[in-house]
């Protein structure tokens, strides 16, 4: 049976070296973001605690700027060729990541992936987590 969908994680697979939050934080002279804004460090917190832990103005930061900084960290070898090969043969691609949705969405558009699942940042400031154990569910959806 031919493969019709390929799902990728983001950090470590499509981006190499430091993760996207570490690179973004370094670019903006905020190295503490690597942990402060990492969803894994918010495990066990209530939605209110998650919201209060987010840096002020996080949602208003321009994703394009953040991610253009993160791409300086380097894409994985063969990434663009891989997506070209898959899309030419009409294989659908997706990104499933525990990074923030606006970062993942930027990369999804960069690579031409049709679907993505990530940590949600809602308009009212609340967070919809995607934990590592949820990645399979994200793919099922």
């Amino acid at each position, binding site marked *: 049976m031919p493969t*019709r969908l*390929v799902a990728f*994680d983001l950090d*470590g697979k499509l981006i190499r070296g430091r993760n996207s939050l570490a690179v973004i934080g370094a670019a903006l002279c905020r190295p503490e973001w690597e942990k402060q804004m990492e969803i894994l460090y918010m495990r066990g917190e209530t939605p209110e605690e998650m919201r209060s832990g987010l840096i002020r103005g996080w949602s208003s930061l321009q994703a394009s700027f953040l991610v253009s900084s993160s791409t300086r960290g380097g894409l994985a070898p063969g990434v663009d060729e891989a997506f070209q090969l898959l899309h030419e043969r009409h294989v659908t691609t997706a990104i499933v990541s525990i990074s923030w949705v606006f970062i993942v969405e930027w990369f999804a558009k960069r690579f031409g992936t049709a679907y993505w699942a990530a940590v949600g940042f809602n308009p009212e400031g609340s967070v919809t987590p995607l934990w590592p154990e949820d990645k399979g569910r994200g793919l099922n959806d």
Partner: protein
Amino acid sequence: MATLHITRHEVAAVGDSPRDASLLRTARHSFYVGTDSPEGLDGIQHYPDGNIAAVARVILRL
């Protein structure tokens, strides 16, 4: 998969750490990139050099 009306047998996943276990186990074809060994994850193809195009070629059987 539900959105596309496809089964896990038509799905491949690419990960690089134990945090990707649920993603890798959900897909029929799973690929682990990077130098770390995919311990505890059976039936996964390991690509230590992490070239994503090489993984795509295997998926596409090129």
